[in-house]
């Protein structure tokens, strides 16, 4: 199997291993073996038809994603009435908020390329020097992050829709959109890596042409990650409003995202007006929204229920 086929196979089998987690070994192994066999036969078909590995990756990935609802329903049906997991609502939301911090960091870690003409040659050579395993692992990790963000959005909506359908819907949409953007950024980066390899292997006018194309992909990756990041930060603000309104966390915590929004908004306005701001001012604003996620998540996970009740003046009316 080629590198990209191995990644596709790992995505499909990794997802099967994830949704069968906790089931009887026999059931789990049977499902994973069946998916592995399917992907193998699929790959053999692609090779026979002499089609490109990217087509195979797209086809397998599409089959995995389209099948997610059926897989989850299958999992629920497998356990049936035996499932009696009583995790308090607050702990689920707290866990999801903490997971969002990690996902936010992973999503943004893809960016940071020096797309300036002078330094870009070094970026391409550095990427080309990395092994296939590193690239495949990176691509797999990014695919998982994108899917996890979509799942986190859905889970937050499911758990918060009774409190505020509108706010939870907006937040979930933002998180899911960030997930889709993270998947797109991951795919763009894969192309960028291929271009980096081609750049190193070529010379002359062709090399110059590859450099221009690769810069285009690098800029597109950066912008896609930025869009995902903005969607996540805005979703965090909406979650902060929701949590504050519903008194899920102490009301004073809303001060953190308010300050974050003020710093980011002020920075963007100042930049638009032509002011030369230090980069850390904007970053500190973004960092504060992550701080809110951590504090709110830990509070919901570990603070005593009595504390939350004491902090809560009473549930606000749902929007």
């Amino acid at each position, binding site marked *: 199997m080629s590198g990209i086929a191995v990644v596709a196979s790992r995505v*499909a089998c990794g997802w*099967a291993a994830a949704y069968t987690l906790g089931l009887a070994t026999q059931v789990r192994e*049977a*499902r994973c*073996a*069946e*998916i*592995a*066999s*399917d992907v*193998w*036969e*699929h790959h*053999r*078909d692609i090779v026979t038809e002499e089609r490109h590995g990217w087509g195979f990756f797209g*086809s397998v990935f*599409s*089959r*995995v*994603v*389209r*099948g*997610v*609802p*059926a*897989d*989850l*329903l*299958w999992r629920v049906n497998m356990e049936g009435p035996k499932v009696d997991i009583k995790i308090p609502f607050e702990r689920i939301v707290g866990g999801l908020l903490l997971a969002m911090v990690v996902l936010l960091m992973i999503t943004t870690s893809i960016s940071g390329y020096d797309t300036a003409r002078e330094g870009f040659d070094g970026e391409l050579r550095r990427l080309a020097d990395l092994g296939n395993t590193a690239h495949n692992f990176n691509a797999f990790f990014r695919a998982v992050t994108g899917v996890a963000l979509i799942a986190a959005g859905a889970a937050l909506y499911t758990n918060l829709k009774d409190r505020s359908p509108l706010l939870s819907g907006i937040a979930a949409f933002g998180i899911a959109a960030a997930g889709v953007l993270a998947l797109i950024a991951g795919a763009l980066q894969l192309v960028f890596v291929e271009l980096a390899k081609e750049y190193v292997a070529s010379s002359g006018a062709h090399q110059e042409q590859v450099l221009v194309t690769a810069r285009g992909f690098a800029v597109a990756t950066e912008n896609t990650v930025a869009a995902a990041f903005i969607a996540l930060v805005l979703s965090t603000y909406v979650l902060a409003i929701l949590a504050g309104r519903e008194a899920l966390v102490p009301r004073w915590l809303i001060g953190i995202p308010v300050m974050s929004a003020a710093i980011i908004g002020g920075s963007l306005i100042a930049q638009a007006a032509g002011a030369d701001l230090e980069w850390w001012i904007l970053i500190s604003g973004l960092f504060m929204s992550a701080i809110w996620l951590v504090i709110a998540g830990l509070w919901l996970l570990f603070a005593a229920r009595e504390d939350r009740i004491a902090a809560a003046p009473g549930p606000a009316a749902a929007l």
Partner: protein
Amino acid sequence: MRRKAGALLSIEIGILQAGIALLRGSDAEFHGYAMAREIRDQEGARSLTAHGTLYRALERLEVRGLLASRWEDPEIAAAEERPRRRMYRVTAEGEAAVQAVAESAQEPAKALKRGLAAS
């Protein structure tokens, strides 16, 4: 929308029909990917059935006795250097269910003919 008890979903009918078609073409048994490809070819679709949708439907059909399955001999898979296949076949009950679906699909046309003849 909840489906009627005993009713078959379109994916399930598609699987049984494709399974019967494969049976007629000398393949008594089929594996999951072969089924996905057969459905795609029969329906003229561009993409293959999703993993989750396909294997959930296959399991439902097996539970209802319309399909039977077995894991192939590991030695065959090892000899061909590939993962083991889970082989399915349409049972007599499965064939009867497809026949019943085909007949019920013709029922409105028959009723219309009877109505026209009576008038």
